[in-house]
């Protein structure tokens, strides 16, 4: 970990929004704590992945290698459907791209904040970017957070949850039951909804959200992978930006 010593006071969120970026151990710990519920649900879904990976014929080493290096649940689940003794690398690469392409718009939104960090730290941080901790970081940024290490801290705890869950699932086999019984399947929608609340623009400016939702739901029916997130996200954000530009 490259941590710059914290020179800020202990409660950075109480400060007025300030431009810039920092990267501290404090921020790492804050992110780690905030994403703990996600990591716990990640353990359960990692277990489900481990069970399915074993059934698809992956060894324990391959399962862990995939969880450690890919670290993107939906694309890993999809890969299992395409798996064989000698999997087609091109098909897997295309399917992985179609599902993870949503990261491209997410990374774009991080540019103004993370471009102020040293490049190696920014590139290491992006390695830990997932939907949930990206949403959390953007939401905290809107509330005044400037410590970019919350993305890494939250990503690291989720990474451990996902990898450990995968190992347990592969070793224990199918004797684990359905994670839905504990409500683990609703952790993710609940978390995203909670992260949305600080971003709420007010009723009169909320229609770009309706555009995003409408385009996402409609394109989800026709597009493969997660292109609907790209389509909905771009449609809603561009609609909002054009409306702002016309207003001025």
């Amino acid at each position, binding site marked *: 970990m490259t941590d710059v010593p914290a020179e800020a006071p202990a409660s950075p969120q109480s400060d007025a929004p300030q431009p810039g970026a920092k990267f501290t151990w404090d921020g790492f710990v804050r992110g780690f704590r905030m994403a703990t519920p996600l990591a716990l649900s990640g353990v359960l879904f990692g277990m489900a992945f481990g069970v399915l990976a074993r059934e698809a014929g992956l060894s324990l080493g391959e399962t862990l290698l995939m969880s450690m290096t890919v670290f993107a649940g939906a694309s890993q689940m999809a890969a299992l459907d395409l798996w064989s003794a000698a999997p087609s690398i091109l098909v897997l690469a295309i399917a992985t791209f179609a599902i993870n392409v949503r990261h491209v718009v997410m990374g774009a939104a991080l540019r103004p904040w993370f471009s102020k960090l040293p490049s190696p730290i920014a590139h290491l941080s992006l390695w830990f970017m997932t939907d949930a901790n990206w949403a959390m970081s953007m939401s905290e940024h809107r509330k005044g957070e400037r410590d970019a290490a919350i993305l890494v801290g939250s990503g690291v705890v989720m990474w451990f949850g996902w990898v450990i869950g995968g190992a347990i699932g592969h070793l224990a086999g199918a004797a684990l039951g359905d994670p839905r*019984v504990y409500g683990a399947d609703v952790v993710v929608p609940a978390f995203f909804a909670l992260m949305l609340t600080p971003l709420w623009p007010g009723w009169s400016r909320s229609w770009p959200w309706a555009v*995003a939702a409408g385009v*996402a739901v409609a394109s989800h029916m026709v597009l493969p992978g997660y292109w609907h997130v790209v389509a909905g996200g771009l449609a809603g954000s561009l609609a*909002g930006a054009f409306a702002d530009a016309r207003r001025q």
Partner: protein
Amino acid sequence: MIGTSQAVLAILVMALVTYLTRVGGFWLMRLVPEGGFVRGWLQHLPGAVIIAILAPMALEGGWAAPVAIAAAVGLGLMRQSSLIAIFGAVALVAVLRQII
């Protein structure tokens, strides 16, 4: 423990593609001038992307996701910590599943 080299190669290609999606947007934005319009657009992006992830999720799989979303937002608006809001929403769905 690790089997065929083809499987390992496939996993590493998946990892590379995934990392490229993670840094791709960050790199592409270097080519875009940081003007007023782009700044405004990036301000709108997080909300729109989260809605685009959440909306299809909320419409699939019955009542559980909408109930959890409403509970989490409700607890969040009551200024509960995010930990309480999420576990509250999850507990509500788990209990309702036992009853229904």
